[in-house]
């Protein structure tokens, strides 16, 4: 099956071409839906078949590369010159990512058939979605950095197209700028902020090529294995790669685009801005684990940024009232956890959390979509309440998602998050401080998630009589149920030894991270007693968060009000997302525009250069004008000059 790997990538591309070129002619939504979902389903089927085949192989045989054709090269035949072949690599990590992308992607495609029903751009939507899957699969299956970058930029483009899908709509960014933005402002912001990160990625690739002479993963990584820890080049490469990751995966300082990205249709938020694209940075770090292992300083930076992002985003999530915004900050925060895992060399734990997060966060977003759908585009949870009566399936599945993300045993989030917390504490690269920050974040997560659940589904209805919420159609509820099931049992692929499991996912991924583990001398072992204590603590704080939210938002709503008035300033800061957007705008965007317009364009170009040129031109014409006066046309005058000249020449000859 492995030689068929390129077909995984090809099918969504064909879907995109068919829908993109002929979609407007196909009037039947069903046909479009089948083409769109079918393309992704086919990709999933191939990936699944390959996966099954890999299960039967020896671990060391599971990595295969299928090369297609030379992409970018100097074609000069010089050995040291640049050469990149389009090649796809199947290994334990990439097949897992492929399954997540195509699996969750397929469910979201099916869901979209219901969600986008009746939209004028129905075909366009599916074309973009298929293009996205194509790009994402290039990202995860690439066997070299450059092709990965193609996917990396491709998903960014699709994100741009899909955030601004309803390009005529206004969009509320919240905070001070409330109500002034449009969806395409959000789209543009996403693309440009990502480009800042991509700048880091590009520089990293240049440095990788300068250091290793290749951009192929196997060449680079086997070269890296020979280097020693603390290598200068490895430090810069990983740091620059991480800059790229902060853009794509919305980490501090480049996280600002993701909350705005919620302007896009909800299935997009679920697929791109929760389950798949935003995790690309995590995948990239995991893929380059050996490089990061060489750079302890970068690892430390990754861990700190990850944990900081986790808690900062969670704190903003506490006060947001837009259902999707809460989930967006939650995503930023959860991505922070994944980076924390990367930073403490818990690579497989990070990928594990990436997988479970894909299940429950896609579920939560799709659930929120069902709610928004039912409420006729209302997104403010203050205007909801009591929806569980109207949307029973959505409610139940959403609740499962919330429990999973809060990290309650035995839901998926419990195992994956706990693994990260444990490694943050116990690993060589970890520390008690990182653990405490992550633990606090977990408490906040439980609190804001249940605040969201309660304000949306519980209590009395806070919407008008004219709104009649109704459960979503089956194309939407079936994916919810499947994802809820996965959120419930997904964690069992990674049950730790301490809980009598055998951590299947860690074993599965072990060969991919072997080089990094060897380099870092990671040991398997641990004292289970400490692990149990920490586990109980984290369960306790999650429970406390849920209890707190339940207490406050069902019974004592006055507490919430009292807190927000008492700590008014803090509340204000959180509501306005720490004013990061405003700072960027004031410190970077506006000065750059002003400088370019006044100083460079009107100042230098027009005034200085053209001024000098035009000045020169007028000077010349001035001189010419004065010479013109000599030519008076009076013959006597000429005669005088003529004679004067002769006298002068003679005098000169004589006196010489």
């Amino acid at each position, binding site marked *: 099956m492995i030689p068929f790997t390129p077909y995984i990538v090809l099918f969504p591309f064909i879907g995109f071409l068919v829908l993109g070129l002929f979609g407007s002619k196909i009037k039947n939504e069903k046909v479009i839906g089948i083409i769109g979902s079918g393309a992704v389903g086919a990709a999933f089927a191939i990936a699944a078949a390959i996966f099954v085949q890999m299960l039967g192989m020896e671990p060391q045989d599971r990595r295969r590369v299928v090369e297609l054709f030379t*992409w*970018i*090269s100097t*074609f*000069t035949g010089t050995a040291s010159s640049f050469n990149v072949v389009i090649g796809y690599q199947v290994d334990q990590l990439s097949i897992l990512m492929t399954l997540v992308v195509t699996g969750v992607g397929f469910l979201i495609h099916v869901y979209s058939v219901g969600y986008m029903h009746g939209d004028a751009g129905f075909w366009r939507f599916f074309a973009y979605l298929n293009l996205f899957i194509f790009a994402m699969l290039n990202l995860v299956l690439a066997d070299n950095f450059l092709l990965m970058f193609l996917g990396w930029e491709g998903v960014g483009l699709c994100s741009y197209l899909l955030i601004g899908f309803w390009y*005529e709509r206004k969009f509320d960014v919240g905070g001070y700028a409330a109500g002034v933005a449009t969806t395409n402002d959000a789209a543009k912001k996403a693309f*440009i902020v990502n480009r800042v990160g*991509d700048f880091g990625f*590009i520089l990293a690739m*240049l440095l990788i090529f300068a250091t290793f002479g290749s951009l192929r993963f196997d060449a680079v990584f086997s070269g890296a294995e020979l280097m020693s820890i603390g290598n200068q080049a490895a430090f810069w490469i990983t740091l620059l790669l991480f800059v790229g990751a902060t853009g794509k995966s919305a980490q501090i300082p480049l996280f600002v685009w993701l909350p705005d990205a919620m302007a896009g249709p909800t299935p997009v938020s679920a697929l791109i801005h929760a389950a798949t694209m935003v995790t690309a940075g995590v995948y990239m770090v995991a893929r380059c684990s050996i490089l990061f292992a060489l750079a302890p300083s970068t690892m430390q930076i990754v861990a700190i940024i990850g944990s900081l992002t986790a808690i900062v985003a969670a704190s903003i999530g506490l006060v947001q009232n837009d259902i999707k915004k809460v989930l967006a900050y939650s995503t930023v925060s959860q991505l922070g956890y994944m980076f924390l895992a990367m930073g403490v060399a818990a690579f497989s734990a990070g990928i594990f959390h990436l997988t479970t997060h894909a299940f429950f966060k896609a579920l939560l977003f799709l659930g929120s979509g069902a709610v928004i759908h039912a409420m006729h585009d209302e997104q403010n949870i203050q205007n909801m309440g009591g929806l569980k009566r109207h949307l029973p399936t959505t409610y139940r599945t959403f609740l499962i998602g919330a429990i999973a993300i809060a990290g309650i045993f035995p839901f998926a989030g419990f195992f994956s998050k706990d693994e990260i917390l444990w490694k943050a504490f116990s690993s060589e690269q970890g520390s008690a401080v990182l653990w405490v920050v992550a633990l606090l974040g977990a408490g906040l997560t439980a609190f804001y998630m249940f605040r969201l659940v309660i304000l949306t589904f519980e209590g009395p209805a806070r919407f008008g009589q004219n709104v009649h919420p109704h459960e979503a159609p089956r194309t939407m509820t079936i994916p919810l149920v499947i994802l809820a099931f996965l959120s419930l049992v997904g964690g069992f692929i990674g049950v730790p030894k301490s809980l009598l499991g055998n951590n299947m996912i860690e074993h599965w991924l072990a060969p991919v991270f072997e080089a990094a583990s060897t380099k870092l001398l990671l040991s398997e072992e641990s004292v289970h007693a400490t692990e149990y204590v920490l586990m109980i603590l984290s369960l306790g704080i999650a429970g406390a968060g849920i209890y707190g939210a339940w207490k406050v938002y069902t019974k004592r709503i006055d507490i919430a009000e009292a807190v927000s008035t008492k700590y008014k300033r803090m509340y204000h800061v959180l509501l306005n997302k720490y004013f990061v957007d405003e700072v960027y705008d004031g410190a970077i965007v506006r000065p750059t525009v002003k400088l370019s317009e006044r100083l460079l364009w009107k100042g230098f170009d027009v005034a200085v250069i053209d001024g000098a040129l035009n000045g020169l031109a007028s000077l010349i014409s001035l001189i010419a004008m004065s010479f013109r006066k000599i030519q008076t046309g009076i013959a006597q005058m000429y005669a005088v000059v003529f004679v004067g000249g002769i006298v002068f020449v003679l005098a000169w000859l004589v006196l010489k």
Partner: protein
Amino acid sequence: MSFHDYALTITIFFPLLGVLVLFFTPKNSVRSIKLTGFVSTLIVFILSLYLFFGFESDNPSFQFQQQVTWISGLNIGYTIGIDGMALLLIVLTAFLTPLALLGTWNSVEHRLKEYTMMVLLLELGMVGVFAALDLFLFYMFWEAMLIPMYFIIGIWGGQDRVYAAIKFFLYTLFGSLLMLVAILALGYFASTLPEGEFTTNLATLYAVAQHIPLNLQLWMFAAFALSFAIKVPLFPLHTWLPDAHVQAPTAGSVILAGVLLKMGTYGFLRFCLPLFPEASLRLTPVLCVLAVVGIIYGALVAMVQTDIKKLVAYSSVSHLGFVVLGIFAMTEEGIQGAIIQMVNHGLSTGALFLLVGMIYDRTHTRTISDFGGVAKLMPVYATFFLVISLSSIGLPGLNGFVGEFLVLLGAFKSAVLGTYAYAAIAGIGVILSAVYLLWMYQRVMLGPVREGAVYAGHKLSDITKREMVALGFIVIFVVWIGVYPGTFLKKSAWTAKTVVTLMENVQRGFQPRYAEWPLKVPNENK
């Protein structure tokens, strides 16, 4: 004597046949004038395809060579021939010219016959410039091409066309006169060598050049480089460009941006580096600093433009900066990147000017703030605009990325530059190009249809089939080069390799440095 031997000459001069036919076409038979123009340029394109497929990529010497003595006493000859770089630029020229006519089919009404003649003469000059292997001949074509362009801007241009045309003319003329002096000095220098004679034959001069002392090299380099830098245009010699572009009619802008600017960068590679290698090495930092400043400066100034056409013009300053950086990085990656980037810029900026022209024809405005919500009314147009913008932004999978990345890589690993700084700063251009193009795209295409827009309430018609064909062909190559650039990069591989080897030999002090120079001089005069 076969067609093959004359293929290049026929390609160069075929437009004359079109001009001749136009002479005898009555000036009010609009349709036949247009058809004559279009068909002539189309045949030139077909001829260029003959060159493309007849060109042997693994043959390092100049191909389709032809040599006829012209002024025998001075050893000036009609010597032509092409290497991979010249081939690609000739095909680009021959590709863009018919598309420029097709894409602006109904844009010119006034003096259509003369206009079409000028376009044909311009094409003749452009192809000639890329084919000439004699400096005197090169200079003739170089200047000859200036005249039709001057008229195209000056007669068929916009409001301030005369100012723009004169500015364009003087700027360029100033540079080229210095070049003429340098050409004569070079020829004269050849005659001062033992048994030497005056000559402008490039092959001979390549061999002669290694005897030129450094200080003379520096002067000659400066004269050539100034002329080319104005053409590129390299910061700070770029101010003629925005005016010329804004005032020129659409087809003029397309050709100006698509082909004319490339003559500067072509000149650097064809003449400056191989003729004055020591001087080039010495002055590389200066040119690269200007190139990098141009990349950033052009992008920042493009960002704040209010006129779409001016925005695209300034973006050219930025993009051509990449080409110059690639050339002077003097690595295989850099030069291959520069060559393909010349083609890329021709395609994407040419297409952008076509697109701007199409909307201008419909609304008679180019001011960004006059627009909004065009995508709603012209969805196909908006899609083309987006694809081309993305190509210009350098999205992987489209053509722009291939060139930009190779250039950055070449500059990064360049031993001549010796520092990562150039590539790192140039990389910022990658962020900025997304900023100015997407911002413009958003303001023009997206959002609701602006109230009070000139086209509000009217039915703004989407692009016609003819326009779609013109853009469609460009998009095909945008994707082709993005996915499978090998077709084109293979052709120019020897050009890059030769120049890089030469520069390396010079750096190491090898004699004779032209040992591997592949240019062969045909002995017999045909």
